[in-house]
């Protein structure tokens, strides 16, 4: 007797694989064509431009700062959502998801209402010499508004997966609730929290609509790409987009690797 015959492949799997291939191509093809349509000298030339460099730097630091600043409130909030029951919790959970579902230009308009110089918050900020509209503070607010649900949801799922017996054991050993949160809950949910931070940061960095309305200037890269496209056309917008995507990918991969290393340590 020869070797036993292979089990026949289900035709359905082949159909699914083919469909998957179409989706993958749909994502990869435009990106690949964009990269391939840029020559190296063109890219080098664009990378030297101060406007481009400034905008990329601005986008990176504002998105990171927005993530870190809002995380201080978002992570404890996520813990509360995971651990406590309170009236209207369903409503609160739904509210958190609103920024994901509304058009981002609309989000920008809504934010402008509370941040503009005529608003209460805008006037208060104005008194200490801070302008929320057309400033990096406004950019951060716009970025955070559209990206914070990702952090809250991811961190909440992380906290939910921490057995509450461990927290009770820590309390039983004499730890204060704050100590339990910092030494037991957060470290055990770290994986989800970090993943949420990365998601929030990436989403904030790629935000265009809301930022455009709150702060056209100083110009973040997504706005710069839009402006170059409008004023000079595809050929001038493309190298900026390529450089920005490359920088984002480098950071994204680096952070992912860092997070992975931390887990296995």
């Amino acid at each position, binding site marked *: 007797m020869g070797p036993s015959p292979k089990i026949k492949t289900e035709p359905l799997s082949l159909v699914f694989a083919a469909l998957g291939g179409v989706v993958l191509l749909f994502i990869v093809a435009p990106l690949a064509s964009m990269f391939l349509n840029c020559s190296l000298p063109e890219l080098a030339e664009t990378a030297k431009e101060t406007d481009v460099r400034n905008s990329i730097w601005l986008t990176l630091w504002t998105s990171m700062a927005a993530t870190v600043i809002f995380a201080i409130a978002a992570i404890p909030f996520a813990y509360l959502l995971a651990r406590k029951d309170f009236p209207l919790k369903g409503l609160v959970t739904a509210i958190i998801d609103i920024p994901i579902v509304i058009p981002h230009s609309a989000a920008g308009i809504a934010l402008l209402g509370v941040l503009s110089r005529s608003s209460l918050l805008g006037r208060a900020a104005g008194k200490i010499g801070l302008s929320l509209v057309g400033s990096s503070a406004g950019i951060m607010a716009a970025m955070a508004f559209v990206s914070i649900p990702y952090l809250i949801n991811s961190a909440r799922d992380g906290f939910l997966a921490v057995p509450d017996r461990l927290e*009770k*054991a*820590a309390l*039983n*050993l*004499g730890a204060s609730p704050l*100590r339990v949160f910092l030494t037991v809950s957060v470290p*055990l949910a770290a994986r989800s929290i970090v993943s949420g931070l990365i998601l929030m940061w990436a989403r904030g960095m790629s935000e265009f609509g809301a930022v455009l309305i709150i702060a056209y200037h100083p110009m973040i890269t997504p706005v710069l790409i839009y402006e170059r496209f409008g004023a000079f056309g595809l050929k001038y917008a493309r190298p900026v987009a390529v450089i920005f995507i490359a920088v984002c990918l480098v950071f994204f991969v680096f952070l992912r690797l860092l997070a992975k290393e931390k887990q296995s340590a």
Partner: protein
Amino acid sequence: MLSVKNISKSLGDLAIKDVSFEVQQGQYFVLLGASGVGKSVLLDTIAGLIRPDAGRIFLDGKDITGEKIQMRKIGLVFQNSTLFPHMTVYDNIAYPLRCKKLKDSQIHKRVAELAENFAATGLLKRRPQTLSGGESQRVSLARTVASEPRCLLLDEPISSLDVKARPQMRALLRKINANGQAIVHVTHDYTEAVSLGTHIGVMEGGTIAQIGSVEEIFHHPKSEFVARFVGIRNFFKGQLEKLDEPQENTRRFKTSGLSFSALTDSPSGSGYIMVRSEDVTIGNAASQTSARNNFEGTIVDIVPAGVGVEVIVDIGTEVAALITAESVKTLELHCGKRVWVSFKASAVKYVEG
């Protein structure tokens, strides 16, 4: 010291009703009950993890019913490991010490001491996930003892361990108790109650059926339930002797003036032997059988026991035999009659203690 008064709590299918007991400094209180009678719920309530529906808990005279978990000074060792998986064994044991804001040098010294006492010195750098059941249980105990609780609550600390790890754990618990630590230990295993407890409470249907010393509970069970549940009427504290002949497993167990044969491979030392009353037979004369334990004595009591009849014979100490009513008739047993009791060495269960 710890005083539990009329605690009631319903939690899904589990319900405890009107539970009251007291534990004094240095006492080892064993709560004995079948699984599902709410023993763990009771411990969780005392530790403050669950709020009781009714009743009060006092520690050193202070009402702690509404006290925060972290302020209670009650140490709970959970049934399943609650060691922190992201910390080493060292950091786990150091955790309550850090909560007390001790200096690093003091923490280091104390962890080393505890690790030594709990046979965990070699484990300090390990992660909890890599520990065996017994190791994990010892580290959990060390960690809770490090928090210096006024009262230590143990939820089935031995039952989940493999048979080989049990004697060491029992010895450890005895040592902790000998240092004056008050302990409440819940279990479904009467051998733990006999070998560890100074006092026992038997739980039946969510309430305490009887509380008393080990002797009171086992020798004078108040109800049919307690008698059945504790299962063992005959137990004796004494010394297990060394092997006379290495190839033999039958060992002598000496207790106040009597010497029993027991089949065991446990090391010699002090401990308890237990014999189920079902395993004891009664005869009017000594007969040649395989039973290694034969004693002559006087019947002091004959009590109907639900199923069968319990005959108590004084052989220098009281031994209970559960036999049928027919046998009582055929053998013409009555109080004051001289009879022979016998049981096999293999019916003798030995527990170190």
